[in-house]
C-alpha cells in the first residue's frame, strides 16, 4: 500500500530556527566578518548577502575519536602494482588515512579549515545595523496625528450589522431572558402551588372562583413567559472600532553634498557610501523612504542620483544655499506632520567665510524643529573650520537630534556610522 503526497506547497525554511540559532551562537564571529566586508565592499554592493567564513575548529562538535598513532590496517580498492610484503615510504605526515573515513581530518586540501556559508541580504544587514537605532523615532510618531487606522476598541451597542459580535449578543440575550423570566417564573410557581393547595382541599371547602382565578393567572403568566423574545434588538452588541493615530511610516532623506572644486571623487565616494548606509538603515525602519539629492557649491540645486554623485563643479562653497533649498523643499512637498525628515550632509568642511553663521541661524531658527535627525560628516584629514564650529553650537542646542563626525578615510565610514546611530541607553 502506498500513497503520494505533494508537499511542495508546504512551508519551506523548516530549518530557519536552527539557522538563526547558529547565527546567534556565532554572532561575534559573523559580526567581525561583516564589519570587514562592509569596508571592503564597493558602493553598489549592499544589495546582496555575504559569504562568511568561520574557522572550523571554533564550531566543531567534538566526540571521542582515534588519534594518529598505533597500528592500523586499511583496506583500499584499486591495487595496481603492489605485491604482498611490499614496503612503502610513509607519505608526508601522520598516518595512512583513507578507508574508514572517520579517523583524521582529511587531506582534501584547504577549505577544510574554514566553515563557509552565505548570509542572505536581510541577515547581512541585520548584522550591519546590529545594535543601531534611529534616534527619537518614537517621539515623532506620537506627534503625528494625520494618519489613522481603525483598531478594535471593545464592544458597543450601536454599529453596523457587519460588525455584530455574535458571542456577546447571545450572552446579552441569555442574561436578559433569565432576568425577565425570573419574577414571572416565581409568580407562576406560587400560583401553581396555590392552585395545587386549593385543589387538594376537601371539595366542600373548595373555592371555585379562586381556582378559576388562579388558572387564568397561570395561563396569563405562561403566555408572558412564552412571549419573551429569544433575541431582541437591545441585546445586539457590535465590535467597536476607533481610529487610532498611526505613526507616519514614511521618511524622506535629504542628501546634501558639497560638489565644489575642493571635493575630490574620493571624497564623494566616501560620502556616497555613507549616504547608502543611512539609506539602507532608514529603509529598514520605514515602509517608504524617499530620497532627495541636493548638491551645492555656491548655489544649490536638486538633482537626480546620477548627477549627484558623478558631476563635478568648480568654485566656492556656500553651504547655506543647500540648507535654504532643503527648507523650501520641505515646505513645498514634505509636511513635517506626515514625513519623518532626515538630513545627511557630507562636506569637506569648506565654507564661505560669512556663511557659517547663516547656516547656524537657518538650522536653529527653522530647520532643526522640523527634522528627525541631522547628521553631518566632514570628510577631511585637516583641522576643522568655521562650519564645524557653527555646527557644534547647533549640536549643543539639539544634542539629541544633531550629530556630526569626522571621516578621514574610507575605513572610518562604518565605525563613524555606528557611532552616530549607536543605541542609547533608554532613560
Amino acid at each position, binding site marked *: 500500500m502506498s500513497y503520494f503526497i505533494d508537499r511542495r506547497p508546504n512551508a519551506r525554511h523548516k530549518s530557519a*530556527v536552527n539557522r538563526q540559532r547558529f547565527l546567534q551562537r556565532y554572532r561575534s564571529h559573523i559580526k567581525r566578518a561583516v564589519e570587514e566586508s562592509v569596508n571592503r565592499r564597493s558602493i553598489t554592493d549592499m544589495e546582496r548577502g555575504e559569504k562568511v567564513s568561520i574557522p572550523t575548529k571554533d564550531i566543531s562538535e567534538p566526540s571521542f575519536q582515534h*588519534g594518529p598513532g*598505533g597500528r592500523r590496517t586499511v*583496506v583500499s*580498492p584499486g591495487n595496481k602494482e603492489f605485491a604482498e610484503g611490499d614496503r612503502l615510504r610513509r607519505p608526508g605526515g601522520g598516518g595512512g588515512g583513507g578507508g574508514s573515513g572517520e579517523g583524521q581530518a582529511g587531506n582534501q586540501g584547504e577549505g577544510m579549515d574554514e566553515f563557509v556559508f*552565505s548570509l542572505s541580504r536581510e541577515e547581512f544587514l541585520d548584522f550591519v545595523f546590529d545594535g543601531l537605532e534611529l534616534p527619537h523615532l518614537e517621539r515623532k510618531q506620537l506627534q503625528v496625528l494625520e494618519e489613522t487606522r481603525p483598531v478594535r476598541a471593545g464592544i458597543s451597542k450601536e454599529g453596523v450589522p457587519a460588525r455584530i459580535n455574535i458571542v456577546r449578543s447571545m450572552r446579552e440575550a441569555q442574561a436578559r431572558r433569565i432576568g425577565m423570566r425570573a419574577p414571572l417564573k416565581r409568580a407562576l410557581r406560587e400560583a401553581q402551588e396555590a392552585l395545587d393547595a386549593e385543589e387538594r382541599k376537601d371539595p366542600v371547602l373548595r373555592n371555585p372562583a379562586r381556582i378559576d382565578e388562579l388558572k387564568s393567572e397561570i395561563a396569563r403568566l405562561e403566555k408572558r413567559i412564552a412571549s419573551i423574545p429569544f433575541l431582541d434588538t437591545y441585546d445586539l452588541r457590535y465590535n467597536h472600532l476607533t481610529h487610532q493615530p498611526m505613526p507616519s511610516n514614511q521618511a524622506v532623506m535629504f542628501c546634501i553634498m558639497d560638489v565644489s572644486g575642493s571635493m575630490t571623487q574620493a571624497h564623494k565616494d566616501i560620502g556616497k557610501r555613507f549616504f547608502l548606509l543611512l539609506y539602507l538603515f532608514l529603509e529598514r525602519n520605514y515602509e517608504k523612504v524617499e530620497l532627495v539629492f541636493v548638491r551645492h557649491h555656491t548655489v544649490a540645486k536638486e538633482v537626480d542620483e546620477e548627477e549627484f554623485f558623478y558631476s563635478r563643479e568648480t568654485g566656492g562653497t556656500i553651504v547655506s544655499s543647500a540648507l535654504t533649498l532643503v527648507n523650501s523643499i520641505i515646505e513645498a512637498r514634505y509636511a513635517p506632520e506626515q514625513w519623518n525628515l532626515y538630513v545627511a550632509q557630507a562636506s569637506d568642511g569648506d565654507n564661505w567665510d560669512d556663511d557659517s553663521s547663516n547656516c547656524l541661524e537657518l538650522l536653529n531658527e527653522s530647520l532643526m524643529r522640523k527634522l528627525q535627525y541631522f547628521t553631518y560628516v566632514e570628510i577631511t584629514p585637516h583641522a576643522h573650520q568655521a562650519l564645524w564650529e557653527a555646527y557644534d553650537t547647533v549640536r549643543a542646542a539639539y544634542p539629541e537630534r544633531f550629530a556630526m563626525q569626522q571621516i578621514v578615510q574610507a575605513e572610518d565610514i562604518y565605525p563613524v556610522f555606528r557611532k552616530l546611530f549607536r543605541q542609547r541607553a533608554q532613560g
Partner: protein
Amino acid sequence: MMTRRKPIATGSDWNFEALEAYERAIAELAKEYRLDTYPNQIEIITSEQMMDAYASVGMPIGYHHWSFGKQFLSVEQAYRRGQMGLAYELVINSDPCIAYLMEENSLMMQVLVIAHACYGHNSFFKGNYLFRTWTDASAIVDYLVFARSYVAKCEERHGVEAVEQLLDACHALQNYGVDRYKRPSPISADEEARRQEEREAYLQTQVNRIWSTIPPVVSELAQEPLHDHENDPLGLHRHGRYPSEPQENLLYFLEKNAPLLEPWQREVVRIVRKLAQYFYPQRQTQVMNEGWATFWHYTLMNRLYDDGLIDEGIMLEFLQSHTSVVTQPGFDSPYFNGINPYALGFAMFSDIQRICQAPTDEDREWFPDIAGSDWLETLHFAMQNFKDESFIQQFLSPKVIRDLKLFSLVDDDRDDSLQIEAIHDDRGYRRIREALSVQYALSAREPNIQVWEADIRGDRSLTLRHVQDRRRPLGQSLFPVMRYLHQLWGFPIKLESTEGDDIVRRYQWPIPEPTRESA
C-alpha cells in the same frame, strides 16, 4: 510470462498518474521478489525542502539546535556553489515509511527512487535484525514529536541557552548512548509524555539514594593509598566499585546517576540517547543497506524494461545514473573518498546472486552452503541476519576482492615504512576479508570507552576506561569531550587508557593544578 507491454510513460517529465502507475508496477514486482515493506508514504518536495530534510539528518521533525543550522548552512552552501548535488532521495525508517522525492528529478529518477527507497531501503528497514531490534518504526515519529515539544518546553522554562549547552554536551557523547543488550520497548508520544512525568519523580529519588550514602570526606583522604586497613578500620571504603560492571552506555549512566542534574536535564539526556539509539543500526549497516537498495533498484528497473514498461530512453538514462552510483575510484584517484558503500554493497549482493545461480569451483569451495542454492532465499537471509561487519566476514567473495582489486596496508607507528599486508591473491583473500570486516566494525571505528568507576564514597569523580585498540591513542577532541562530561557529571572526570591490563595513559578534567591555592 513476459509479455511486452506499452511503456507507462516516456520522456523526462513526470506526473502523478505516471508515478502512481509505476509505483503499482514496482509493487507487483516487489511482491514477486518477496520484498516485505512498510506502507509507503511518498512525498514530493522541492530542493529547498530537501535541504531542510538533510539538515535535520532526515528526521521529519526535530528539536531545535544550532548544529542542525550549521548542517543546513553547509549543505546550502555546497549546493548553491554546485559542489554537491542533493541526494535524489531520502528515506526515513518509520511506519509508514516516508520517502522524499525531489520535484526536480526526471521521470527516470523518480521511478528509480521509488524502486531504491520505497522497496529497497524500506524492505531493509523492515527485515534487518538490527533495525528490528533497535528501532521502532511505528513509534519514531511520535517520539520525535514528544522530543521536540519537550525540548521546546524546557527552552521556555529554563532558557534557550541552558538547553543548548546541555544538548551540546549530550551530542558530544551520543555515539556512547546505546545499550547494546536490552531491547527498548515501543511507546507513543502521549504515553511517553505521561511516563516522563512519573520518571522525573522516580529518577530523582533513585539518584538521591545512591548519593545519600556519601559520608563527608575531606578530599585528601580520598586518595587510594589511604584506603588500607590502618586508615579505614571500619571498612567504609571496602564496598567494591560502583558500578560493579563497566558501563558502555555513557549517556544512560549519566541519566541515571549524575548527581546534580535536574529532572528535566535527565530527560533531555534521555532524548538524545533515544535518538542516538534510533540511528545506531544505520551506522552499522551502511554497506548492506545501500547495497541492498541498489541491487533492487537495478533488478526492478531491468524487469520494468523487460516487461516493456519503460522505454530505451529511460533505460539508457538509468544505466548512466546507476553506473555513476556504483563507481569505485581507485585509492590513487583524485576522486577517491574511501570505499563507496553503494559499490561494495551492490557488488556483494550481485555476487551472492551469481554464486547461487552460476557457482564456480572456487565458489563451491568458499561458500559450500549457498553455492547453487535458491538466490532469492539466500539474499533475504543475508539481508536479515547481518550487519556490515559480519556481512563482509561472511559473504565477501574472492571474486569481489579481485574485481575491486582490494589490498590491505598496515600503518604501524613503530615501523618507519608502510607495509602491504595482503592483495587480491589466494594468500590474501582471507586476510583482506578479515581486515575489511574489522574496518566496518563499530568498535574499531570508535574508541572503546566505558564507565569504570564513580567514586561515590570519595570525591565523586567519575573514571572512564578506554581500551586501546592496537595501541591507537585518543585524538585531540578528547579534552573538549571530557569538559562536556564534566558539565554533565558535575565532578572531576578521569580517563585511563589501557592496553592489556596496564594503564598506559591517564587524563583528567579539570586539569589538576600542581599547587592548589584556595581562593
